[in-house]
């Protein structure tokens, strides 16, 4: 109780000190405050725009659509194929295997020669009178 009384005393002393120590607004300052007060009152009494429920509904639909698209995209990429591996994992492993496969250069050269021979042969088979 004594503590509370002490606080009350200090509060009253503070009020007195500040009220005496800080000058009240002068005439010009009071006029400016009055002017803004009237503007604020006009603002408060203006009709606030009614929120359209349709807009909220549209927002909800757009949000739901975006979520659904995102979900489908994620499922499409990560959905497991019949072998049990996810599509993304499958594709990546194949690509890596192709890139990293140990290819024999001599075989590739033989293949190239073969395809060149096929091309030459086809050219020769074409009859001259056509």
């Amino acid at each position, binding site marked *: 109780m004594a503590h509370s009384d*002490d*606080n009350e*005393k*200090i*509060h*009253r*002393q*503070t*009020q*007195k*000190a*500040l*009220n*005496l*120590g*800080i*000058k*009240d*607004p002068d005439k010009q*300052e009071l006029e*400016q*405050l009055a002017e*803004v*007060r009237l*503007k*604020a*009152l006009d*603002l*408060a*009494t203006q009709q606030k725009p009614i929120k359209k429920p349709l807009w909220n509904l549209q927002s909800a639909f757009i949000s739901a659509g975006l979520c659904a698209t995102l979900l489908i995209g994620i499922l499409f990429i990560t959905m497991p194929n019949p072998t049990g591996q996810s599509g993304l994992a499958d594709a990546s492993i194949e690509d890596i295997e192709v890139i990293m496969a140990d290819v024999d250069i001599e075989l590739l050269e033989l293949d190239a020669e073969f395809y060149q021979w096929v091309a030459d042969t086809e050219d020769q088979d074409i009859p001259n009178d056509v």
Partner: protein
Amino acid sequence: MQSTRQALNDFFCAAQTKAFKQVAFSIGDRDEALDIVQDAMMKLAQHYSDQPENWPKLFQRIIQNLIRDWYRRHKTRSLFAWFGQTQTNNCEFEDDSIDQFPDPRSDQTPEQQADSQKTLLQLFNAIKQLPQKQQQAFLLRAWWEFSVEDAAFAMQCSTGSVKTHYFRANKRLRELVDNLDFINIGAHHGSL
């Protein structure tokens, strides 16, 4: 609608002078204080005119936010300011003249009156010296007579923080002001 307008007008009329003095005291610039109070009035009217029961604490919350923004801007500006450039301060009440604190009590001896005036002046200057948060909490509790909960709402912090800031402010004021309990309270000026 008319009653809301009237009620809001009454609220502003009752609070504007005290709010203006509070902001002017906090930031030390009367022109800026006027801008802040005007801005707070507009914001309260625009967003919270339908909550008359909460106007006092909402008004304080807006004011506290605007004061914080002012300090932020002020500090940023100070960072870019030239060394040696003096800060503009048109605060009129920084005059430490003891005549600002006349004591209306006539039943005191001249010595007692002088002591009271001196202590009030010390208290005024001591409150000015408090760190911003402590000053906020103290002014809300002591000058506006807000509850701890309403002060916490206005300052956007917990009630525990308000209690801590207020306790520290109180302690600091007792350290800075001699004979704090000696002041003979005259007429009560604090009410709105």
